[in-house]
């Protein structure tokens, strides 16, 4: 199969407008004859479900949580970018586009990224109209702040909980449609498979997580808005329930997986304290606006800190290494995430890390507190400081925070064309679940932007084009493919429930996470990846022999839920390793030790790897087939990224 990204012809700035005009429309009276399934109710899912229902389509929305408001978009802290140029500081749609392409280390599609920048301005308008309480200035206008990888202030924010406020906005729009009967909401429901009829996505199989009932649902189109797969690393900043199952099962039904190895390691997270740790907590990147990152200049001082002989404040100014400011004078502490993370790892590898484990660097607010006063700093970051205090029992107003990189976001995801359609006709992927807009590294405050762009302003146009093509004839679950897929799901559950070995599913998950972090994390090498491949494949075999899965299918059974998700993570892990092995270059979050500049920066190979790697599932125990979508750059010049 040849990949066609369906990028419209014409100048960059006109592509989306022209494309919107060329897309087929469904007339208003016919829209109610179409059913659309939306899986996931985060920013992408809730905004898509609400917008499509407003247009008149019949929407069925699904989430595994007890309420659509709990999707993990809610945890985003820092903000959302938009090229409003309210600051008069030189921002524009083109600059946001340029920053995003460059920030992604030239591994994203120009046309998609430009569209994202273009609709970013509409998102802010939309959210404000819904009553989202963004930060404001005394004159009543919206406030902005700056974020990593940009030299303009284009980030809109709602204290340290922008994600919750934007999600509640989308949730309120969704609620309105539920109230009007246009959306039927299924909570505590997990998608376990995709139903494909004659090559087209026509429904899903779900498990009701309360009574265990396996259900089938039919529709003219299926939208996966199921988020990322960072939990493949076990420890990440994702929610405990975040998983790849819906996307992975769709992948096994024919949807190609794009750039699975592109994962983002966020530089400012609270460091790991012990083996009991179940998840990592992010400290918003916005903290780097006012916090300075440093470690002691010498290993000796670092050693003394770690032994508790001295405290951070005992280290004299001249003995501190503000390594980001030193190495990147023009961006300083605001370099993109991948660069900040790698440098933190580097100084820790040199033995200059802080904290008991030595796997942490300082994020110090004392200068800002002296300059702005404690109250101003508290007004900006109070809830983050409180959260830090609660978790670590250390007061960040009095001593510097300790931070270390952690898995945060996955740029990879299901391959989609410009219309957000996967390689299975009728199946779409939105938000973090797709691979499309962030290349090899995502800039801060761009995830919320992309989720809402896809849901509010892209899919309402593009899905109509497909629906108009297939026509409004009713689709129901009578086709034998539904029964067949349901049977396969039930058999898989039966096999899982028969596992009564001696190792818990959590133990497998932890083992997988350790392998992935060690060999497919911040730094990768051919040798390590090959080792990881063997380790994961052994782990997979062992899982299906020795895992313990308790209980029965027809009840609430968290043991079973976890087992299914971890089994999928193990398979995905293998594909991530294959993808990382295939990509013999460093770019963004994918850092191969063999490919670096003399200064230790990521060294791309544009001649051979300026493509999207889209992987096709070929059956159990078969190697996946690689398809390449060449990336064409007509508007930006590919250069070595420099933040110096």
């Amino acid at each position, binding site marked *: 199969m040849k990949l066609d990204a369906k990028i419209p012809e014409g100048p960059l700035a006109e592509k989306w407008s022209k494309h919107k005009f060329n897309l087929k429309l469904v007339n208003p009276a016919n829209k109610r004859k179409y059913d659309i399934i939306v899986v996931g109710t985060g920013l992408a899912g809730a905004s898509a479900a609400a917008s499509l229902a407003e247009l008149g389509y019949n929407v069925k929305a699904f989430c595994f949580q007890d309420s659509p*408001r709990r999707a993990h978009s809610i945890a985003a802290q820092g903000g959302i970018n938009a090229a409003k140029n309210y600051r008069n500081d030189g921002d524009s749609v083109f600059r946001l586009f340029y920053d995003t392409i460059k920030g992604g280390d030239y591994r994203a599609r120009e046309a998609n990224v430009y569209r994202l920048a273009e609709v970013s301005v509409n998102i802010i308008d*939309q959210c404000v109209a819904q*009553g989202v309480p963004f930060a404001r200035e005394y004159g009543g206008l919206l406030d902005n702040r700056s974020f990593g990888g940009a030299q303009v202030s284009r980030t809109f924010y709602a204290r340290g909980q922008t994600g919750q406020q934007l999600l509640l906005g989308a949730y309120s729009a969704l609620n309105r449609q539920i109230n009007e009967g246009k959306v039927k909401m299924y909570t505590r429901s997990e998608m376990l498979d995709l139903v494909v009829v004659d090559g087209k996505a026509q429904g899903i199989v779900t498990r009701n997580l309360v009574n265990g009932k396996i259900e089938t649902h039919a529709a003219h189109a299926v939208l996966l808005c199921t988020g990322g797969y960072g939990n493949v690393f076990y420890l990440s900043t994702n929610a405990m329930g975040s998983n790849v199952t819906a996307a992975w099962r769709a992948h096994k039904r024919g949807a190609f997986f794009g750039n699975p190895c592109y994962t983002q390691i966020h530089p400012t997270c609270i460091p790991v304290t012990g083996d009991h740790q179940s998840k990592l907590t992010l400290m918003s990147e916005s903290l780097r606006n006012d916090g300075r990152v440093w470690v002691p200049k010498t290993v000796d001082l670092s050693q003394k800190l770690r032994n508790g002989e001295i405290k951070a404040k005992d280290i004299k100014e001249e003995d501190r290494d503000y390594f980001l400011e030193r190495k990147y004078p023009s961006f300083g502490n605001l370099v993109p995430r991948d660069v900040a993370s790698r440098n933190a790892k580097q100084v820790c590898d040199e033995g200059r890390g802080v904290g008991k484990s030595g796997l942490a660097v300082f994020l110090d607010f004392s200068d800002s507190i002296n300059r702005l006063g404690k109250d101003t700093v508290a007004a900006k970051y109070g809830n983050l400081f409180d959260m830090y205090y609660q978790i670590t029992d250390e007061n960040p107003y009095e001593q510097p925070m300790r931070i270390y990189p952690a898995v945060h976001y996955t740029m990879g995801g299901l391959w989609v064309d410009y219309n957000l359609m996967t390689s299975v006709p009728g199946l779409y992927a939105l938000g973090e679940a797709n691979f499309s807009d962030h290349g090899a590294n995502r800039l801060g405050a761009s995830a919320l932007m992309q989720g809402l762009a896809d849901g509010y302003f892209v899919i309402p146009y593009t899905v109509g084009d497909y629906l108009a093509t297939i026509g409004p004839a009713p689709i129901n679950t009578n086709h034998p493919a539904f029964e067949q897929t349901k049977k396969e799901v039930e058999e898989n559950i039966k096999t899982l429930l028969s596992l009564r070995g001696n190792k818990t599913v959590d133990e497998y998950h932890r083992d997988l996470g350790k392998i992935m972090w060690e060999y497919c994390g911040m730094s990768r090498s051919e040798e390590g990846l090959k080792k990881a491949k063997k380790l994961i494949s052994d782990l997979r075999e062992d899982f299906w022999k020795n895992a313990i899965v308790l209980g029965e299918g027809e009840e609430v059974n968290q043991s079973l839920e976890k087992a299914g998700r971890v089994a999928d993570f193990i398979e995905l892990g293998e594909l991530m390793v294959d993808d990382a092995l295939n990509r013999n270059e460093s770019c963004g979050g994918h850092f191969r030790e063999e490919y670096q500049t003399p200064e230790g920066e990521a060294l791309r190979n544009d001649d051979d790897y300026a493509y999207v790697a889209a992987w096709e599932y070929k059956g159990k125990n078969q190697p996946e087939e690689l398809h390449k979508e060449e990336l064409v750059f007509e508007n930006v010049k590919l250069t070595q990224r420099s933040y110096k």
Partner: protein
Amino acid sequence: MNLTLKVWRQKNSQTPGKFVTYKAEEISPDMSFLEMLDVVNEKLVKTQEDPIQFDHDCREGICGMCSLMINGEPHGPKRATTTCQLHMRSFKDGETIVIEPWRAAAFPVVKDLAVDRSAFDRIQQAGGYVSVGTGGVPDANEILIPKTIADEAFNSATCIGCGACVAACKNASAMLFVSAKVSQYAMLPQGQTERYERAKAMVNQMDDEGFGSCTNTYACEAQCPKEIKVTNIARMNREYFNAEFIKG
């Protein structure tokens, strides 16, 4: 640390439940309360026993999914803290901890410590929104909102919908939750057009769900992990009464 847990176990909403005693051993004070339960659960699974079901997701104190009555207090002894952000350093070695689900007729038990809070969703669906469709809205800066009002509306908007207010209330009243949403919109210019219909619809739905009445004990405010203020309840009452007199 070593602890004794008395945990409410209940197979489903139809089956009666009971307290079961478990040992939580070798617990680190740096663990969160839920990580302590993870340790207990992993041991249970190892011995082929059904693990304790509890709701949780983000573990950052923002999704509102975690709950638990801990020694009779929603989200445990620490103020302004969700269970997932409560750490074991708040407890003493050797302590006995009683863990129950939220108790309210409108929140039926799903299993063990997990309850069904969909009543909250239905209240929001009844009117917790501004009726604005996607597209066709004014530029964001055309709606001016004074900072003081924006900040006050924000304080109401920080509610995470966990249900601690209901669990804390001897009447199982949902007034704090509902009033936070009603207040947010009543204070903002975007919410003016529908402010009275909204208050009425949401209050009526709240009553239909079987939540109790407010008798001003302020237990909800004391236990709210996001420190939502009872002044919201006063605002909601005003909105609701005005709705009777001023036909919006």
